[in-house]
């Protein structure tokens, strides 16, 4: 194999990242639905011809870590590389073929130079609606994947640059949001085109031999860096357990139990003892669990190194088949993120015992997804879909950030005024929830609330919330955060309908209020500097009751 000098290597590595960033910019600027455009729920990456991730844009780790495994599944089980021709685009959203849940459509396109496929470019977008039992394809009452929407096995949407109109039409016909889905698919394809053009240029400039050598070295270097980080952690077996509240059908909590073994330069992450797969849609396929584990271990490893498939090599996963972290077909999976977050929480909790000075207390740990299905005055269906976040866990040295998106899903805030200008809702509140951050020497970040009134004649509310019963944990004597809650007000009557709703009827004038969980605290609250407690009180982050009772602050000379 041709070799590559260390300078050229770094230049090629950056060129690959730059190409994936250009793909990312393309989707960001051209997509149509708010999920993608304002919440940035998409990712782009570049793979070698074996489907291994070699470069990625700084987007959503939960996607990025799973794209390579999905592509490897496609290449090995469905469309072997020999069948990928120039201008082909293979798409899938199948969780049982490396995907995560049906709204995420992955699209891959090979890059041919001189007749040979030298790389594959990929883009994943969370699409607004792919059918199924509820608007936004989030049906928490689904018990089989068939109820969750259209399942697309890996197939060629484009062959030799020509779109398969029959398949395209079939996909659009299964969506409540035909126009937006078509627009988002188009921007996904534009990103692949940009990526393929850039890769071709890189290959021509540096030669396919050096490019191939560089991609191997890039992965090896990240593997070495990952191994070095693991070696720096003390050997041992670290256990932790966290819980998913329920699966929407019973009150039964679902344990996510993990034992992380650090042994020299490798880590074994064993989920034996975790809950069996659930009836409801909180299940993770194996690829989803891998993605969550990779994210957690890479975050705990810290360090500055390029994220790619090389990082995954020293990490081994043991996940019993038929469990909530490795479900069997046809288990429903749309809310896989609920368990996904809990996997991250549990693995981090375990690693906190290995490197206690580096790991923060639990973050809010939920994608607070809700959707309201309505009709426009014209009678056309209209879906308002939102994903909310909560408080970040306190770090050993610093307070947790308030209402701050976790790196795992990395979502952006969607402006109330933009929502109001597009959907028949009016917001009556949006702010931080006092006392929602776990008390500690450093305080957990606060959760947020969002409160809106329905202006349409009627609507249907679907939610997939979590952390309503099991709060984000504190560490080292820090207290857990507040749990989240959902309130519905009608004619002055307030009720709490629970965390996972499918098809709750709303009427004009109903007020929906979501409060999200905060982050856990770190260390003994009594040892928090008094000035910091007083400032929290003055800022309205904590109540007087908590300032006195939990932190032991003396106010006006009065002891607690």
């Amino acid at each position, binding site marked *: 194999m041709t070799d590559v000098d260390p300078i050229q290597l770094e230049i090629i590595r950056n060129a690959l990242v730059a190409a994936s960033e250009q793909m990312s*910019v393309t989707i960001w600027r051209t997509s*149509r639905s708010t999920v993608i455009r304002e919440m940035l729920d998409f990712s782009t990456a570049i793979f070698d011809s074996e489907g291994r991730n070699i470069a990625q844009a700084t987007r959503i780790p939960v996607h990025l870590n799973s794209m390579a495994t999905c592509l490897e599944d496609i290449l090995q089980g469905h469309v072997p590389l020999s069948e990928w021709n120039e201008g082909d685009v293979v798409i899938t959203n199948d969780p049982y073929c490396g995907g995560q849940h049906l709204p995420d459509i992955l699209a891959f396109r090979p890059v041919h130079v001189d007749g040979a496929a030298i790389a594959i470019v990929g883009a994943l977008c969370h699409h607004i609606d792919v059918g199924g039992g509820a608007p936004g394809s989030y049906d928490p009452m689904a018990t089989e994947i068939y109820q969750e929407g259209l399942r697309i096995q890996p197939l060629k949407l484009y062959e030799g640059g020509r779109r398969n109109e029959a398949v395209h039409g079939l996909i659009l016909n299964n969506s409540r949001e035909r126009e937006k889905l078509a627009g988002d698919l188009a921007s996904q394809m534009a990103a692949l085109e940009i990526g393929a053009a850039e890769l071709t240029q890189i290959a021509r400039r540096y030669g396919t031999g050096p490019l191939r050598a560089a991609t191997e070295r890039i992965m090896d270097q990240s593997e070495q860096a990952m191994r070095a980080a693991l070696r720096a952690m003390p050997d041992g077996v670290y256990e932790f357990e966290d819980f998913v509240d329920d699966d929407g059908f019973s009150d039964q909590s679902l344990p996510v139990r993990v034992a992380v073994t650090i042994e020299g330069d490798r880590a074994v992450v064993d989920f034996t003892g975790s809950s069996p797969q659930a009836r409801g849609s909180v299940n993770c396929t194996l690829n989803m669990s891998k993605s969550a584990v990779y994210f957690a271990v890479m975050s705990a490893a810290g360090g500055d190194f390029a994220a790619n498939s090389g990082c995954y090599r020293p990490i081994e996963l043991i996940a019993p088949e038929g469990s909530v972290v490795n479900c069997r077909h046809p288990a429903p999976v749309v809310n896989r993120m609920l368990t996904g977050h809990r996997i991250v929480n549990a693995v981090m909790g375990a690693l906190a015992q290995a490197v206690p000075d580096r790991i923060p207390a639990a973050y809010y740990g939920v994608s607070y997804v809700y959707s309201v299905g309505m009709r426009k005055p014209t009678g056309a269906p209209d879906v308002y879909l939102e994903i909310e976040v909560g408080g970040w866990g306190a770090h050993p040295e610093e307070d947790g950030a308030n209402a701050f998106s976790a790196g795992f899903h990395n979502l952006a805030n969607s402006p109330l005024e933009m929502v109001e200008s597009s959907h028949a809702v009016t917001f009556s509140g949006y702010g931080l929830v006092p006392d929602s951050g776990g008390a500690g020497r450093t305080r957990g970040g606060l959760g947020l609330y969002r409160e809106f009134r329905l202006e349409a004649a009627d609507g249907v509310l679907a939610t997939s919330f979590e952390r309503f019963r099991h709060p984000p944990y504190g560490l080292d004597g820090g207290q857990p955060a507040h749990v989240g809650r959902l309130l519905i007000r009608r004619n002055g009557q307030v009720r709490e309908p629970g965390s996972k709703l499918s098809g709750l009827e709303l009427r004009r004038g109903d007020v929906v209020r979501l409060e999200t969980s905060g982050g856990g605290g770190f260390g003994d609250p009594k040892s928090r500097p008094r000035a910091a407690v007083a400032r929290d009180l003055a800022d309205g982050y904590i109540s007087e009751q908590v300032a006195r009772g939990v932190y032991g602050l003396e106010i006006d000379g009065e002891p607690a």
Partner: protein
Amino acid sequence: MSLSSDVSPEIREFERSSTTALNALLVPVVARYLDRLSARMREARFDPHLYLVQSNGGLATPEVAGAQPVRLLLSGPSGGAMAVTQLAADVGEPNLVGVDMGGTSFDVCVVRDGASSVITEGDIDGLPVRLPMMEIRTVGAGGGSIAWIDPGGALHVGPRSAGASPGPVAYGQGGEEPAVTDANVALGRIDPEYFLGGAMRLDHAAAERAIAGKIGAPLGLSMPAAAEGMLSVANANMAAAIKLSLFEKGLDPRDFALASSGGAGGLHAIALAEEMSMDRVVFPRDPGTLSAYGILFSDITHDLARSRLVPAEADSLPVLQDLLDGLMADGAGLLDRDAIAPDDRNFAVAADMRYRGQAFELLVPWRDVESGAKISTAALDRLIGDFHDQHLRQFAYNEPGGPVEIVTLRVTAIGRLPKPRLRAFESRGTSSPKAHRRIYLDGDWRETPVYDRHALSLDASVAGPAVVEEEYTTILVADGWSIAPGTTGDLIARRQSGAGGREAE
């Protein structure tokens, strides 16, 4: 007191609140400064017209600036962008990418068809500022960018910077990590005795040691190979950042020339141009006062905006007409207060537009819509057509016939001010080198001629490899390039025909 309806009357609550809060924070500071300034000018019996530069590159009277100081936040870089715009006209390069590379930062601005681009939102310390401003992209790279090896053995340059203090190792102020400037010193590209015109001595040996020890040894490279590698990586990163900023607008670097200012720029500009397949690089005259020069060519501007989400169709014409009339009247009132004569007024209209369902807008100039005029259906159709075209250019696809919305209508009221004449340039030099220096280039030490910028002649271009020095910067002219002053006194480097560059295509 700052009202968001005055400061930033646009949709998106967080951006608007942030802009207004920043304004409120700045009012006392700027007002105090302006009071002091005018008091001292009175004392000194100095009575010129006083204007302040805004982030949009235009000028404002002290009254406007005192009430809305948030509009001044990025005035420094915007002067630079104005200067590059003026430079584009001076040297006849309507498509010009300006890069300003200093010790810690690297600013990029784009002039296209003779005009620099304006964006409707920027940020300061992570806080959004929703106001029109010159589009300037800041990249975390400069002479201070540090080279390092990660635990997996990969070389990186930046994003960490040695900054001005301790600065690169060669500054001798305690810096221990080799920076880009150290590589330039170690390879003889910067004369350690003539840095900042000799005002600061550099430690050549320390730079060499740091590079050999921290980069060369782990990678198994000689000191000069490691240093040249650092520069290649830094140049590739900077070129990628410039390309990305052009890409976001659907532009191709090959359609542009490069303009380089900033102390660290001269050594990198031609390499950057090669990376991007550009053929010409302009080094402005008097680079140290370039921003101030640009400001001399700006006009009073008032940016006015109103958000109203309406479909872009004939039914919306009455609403749009109302908005436009209101904005025009406000603009005229402001120019009245500035005492601008009717003949010196200009009004530019633009709309923020998107396809229904999109959440970011394109700023589309509304051509040929004038003050007091009725907006015709034809004018609206023209605007929509321009939107489709611009969308296609910028995003590689569009949807002619798709539903389009107008989110915000904008008017820029301009009061033209008198302009200075271009300074005459007299070429007095003979283009003979003042010295020769050993410089490491493309893998070899080479005896290279060194020229004083002021001794270059209009009539005798200098072929690379060569070094051109002045107090403020050092220019490295690569093999295959030549350099000579233009009639304006700005230096222009050209890729020699047939040189072809490094691109394998």
